């Protein structure tokens, strides 16, 4: 019952945050120097045409009405034409988003699948060789530029060893799997399209690993610190003195409480993956929202920039909401506090 209340409260907080993000994006988009109508029509356009376009874009209305029009268009899935693809930005987003989402999910999975065990072992076996190794790995992970690591991966695994593809999402001779979710790995599994699955798995590994190094490192560092801190806590000493087996103490008390700070930054790590996908997607020519967005900034495709910002912001807010849900589940103090 209380948990449901907590969820509802989080959900209600979600709306003003989303609204503020929209306001921020809108304000920034109206700071563009020059008149959008004149920019769209070019310097030689007659005044009558410009004012006609201003009228049809709603630019002659007061700013708060313009904001409402902006929101209304957004709800109808209209974000304006993209200069690069010459279609509505919304269509582009729908096309490119699943690729990025898939990449982010796979990198987050890699980061957690390696980071959590490594952090636990490192914390329990403090100052043993495995701990030193994982500290070196994690320090390397937070310090290495991801775009550079991506290039080095391509150099080593694609050019020299020739075991990984250089770029793209799926092999050129293989037709993409039937569109169900837009995530190639899932779609090809569901339709039992094994060649497509293998090919898309091979294509996603290098970009996903390059994106996951930094989140992985941060998970290891936090988890290690948490376990070391709680290992000597009085309540752990107490159960130890009572003769509870080490394994059971770890599983029942230590891991759960040390995991809470990790959970709290997973939303942030997700954000860093989304943000860094801009560079990593560019390196691997991954047809996702990041590459689309960085091209948009490079060619000053303003509608596309606004669209990508909104999508990234919304993804981040939803990710944080999901994390908050787990957070309340793991740590009752948060639910009831």
């Amino acid at each position: 019952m209380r948990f449901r209340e907590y969820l509802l409260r989080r959900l209600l907080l979600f709306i003003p945050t989303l609204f503020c993000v929209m306001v921020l994006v809108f304000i920034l988009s109206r700071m563009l120097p020059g008149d959008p109508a004149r920019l769209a029509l070019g310097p030689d356009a007659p005044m009558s045409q410009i004012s006609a376009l201003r009228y049809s874009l709603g630019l002659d209305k007061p700013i708060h009405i313009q904001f409402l029009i902006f929101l209304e268009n957004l709800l109808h899935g209209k974000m304006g034409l993209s200069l690069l693809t010459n279609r509505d930005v919304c269509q582009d987003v729908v096309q490119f988003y699943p690729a990025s989402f898939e990449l982010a999910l796979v990198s987050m999975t890699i980061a957690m699948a390696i980071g959590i065990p490594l952090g636990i072992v490192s914390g329990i076996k403090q100052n043993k060789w495995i701990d030193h190794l994982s500290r070196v790995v994690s320090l390397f992970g937070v310090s290495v530029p991801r775009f550079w690591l991506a290039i080095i991966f391509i150099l080593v695994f694609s050019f020299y060893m020739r075991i990984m593809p250089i770029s793209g999402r799926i092999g050129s001779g293989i037709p993409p799997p039937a569109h169900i979710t837009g995530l190639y790995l899932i779609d090809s599994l569901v339709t039992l399209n094994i060649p497509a699955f293998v090919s898309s798995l091979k294509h996603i590994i290098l970009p996903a690993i390059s994106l996951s190094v930094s989140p992985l490192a941060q998970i290891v560092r936090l988890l290690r610190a948490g376990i070391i801190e709680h290992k000597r806590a009085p309540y752990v000493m107490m159960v130890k003195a009572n003769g509870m087996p080490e394994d059971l103490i770890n599983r029942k008390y230590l891991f759960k409480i040390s995991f809470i700070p990790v959970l709290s930054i997973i939303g942030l790590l997700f954000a860093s993956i989304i943000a860094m996908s801009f560079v990593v997607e560019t390196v691997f020519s991954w047809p996702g929202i990041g590459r689309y967005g960085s091209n948009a900034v490079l060619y000053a495709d303003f509608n596309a920039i606004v669209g990508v910002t909104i999508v990234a912001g919304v993804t981040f807010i939803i990710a944080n909401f999901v994390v908050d849900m787990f957070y309340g589940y793991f740590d009752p103090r948060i639910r009831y506090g």
Partner: protein
Amino acid sequence: MGKTNYSTKLISCRAYLESFFRGIYVIRKNTLAIVGIGVFLSLLLMCIFAPWLAPYPEDAGDAIHLSQSFKSPSMLHILGTDQMGRDIFSRITFGGRNTLLAGLIIPLVGASIGCTLGLIAGYIGRRIGSVIMRTTDVFLSIPPLIIALLVIGVFGPSLKNIIFALSIVWWPWYTRLVHGEVISLREETFVESSRLLGAKSTRTMFSEILPNAIPPIIVKITLDIGYAILNAAALGFLGLGVLPPTPEWGLMVSQGRLYLPSIWWITTFPGIFIFLAVFSINLIGDGLRDLLDVEVM
């Protein structure tokens, strides 16, 4: 009155010096932090003295020696040459000026904006405080690099705009950090006595409360320098920073990408320098964190 003031100042000055020397003593035992300081200072000095250290200072600009292009590392060009025949090492020494400058300025600007807002929100509180903290939440709810991209999209690519864009997205963390510290310090007796003695709120905020919140801020700034270098280099890599032929580490990595795999040195070496800078500053940050015994994310 003046005399007492003078003597308290003297005592506090002595206490500062003592803790400073104790700090040096403690950090001396942290080998990794010393290594970090050594590496980062060398990189910094290398960039400051670039005009004297670079073997071919003219190569930092738009010099073209096509006969020298794509030379692999040798005694003549220790890190090789690029497509225009320019010496990579010379370009790295000059390029670091841009990358490191961005890395140092961004957290400092972010911290000054963020700390001031955090102090105001925590100390004055009430309505202004909640407005500031809600705004902070909004900024925290969008990935910083994305806002930076939006800002650069509006104002156009340049190093100045990268620094500007990243600085304005960097402050929310400091606001939250300082706000938390202020809330816990606000009710302390020394703050109350300062207030009772009739100090203005600005004085209480900046000379009573802020000094007590300094350790976590310093650690955070140090660790953030690394993140700022990585982010600035990433934006440079996307071509949103300095314009060629000006060298910048991220941009150099990107330029070399076209000539892979045979010409590997153009891309590899600037990347190693970015890594070294961030790695060393992280070692320093970790050392400081242990030294000052604070928890900073």
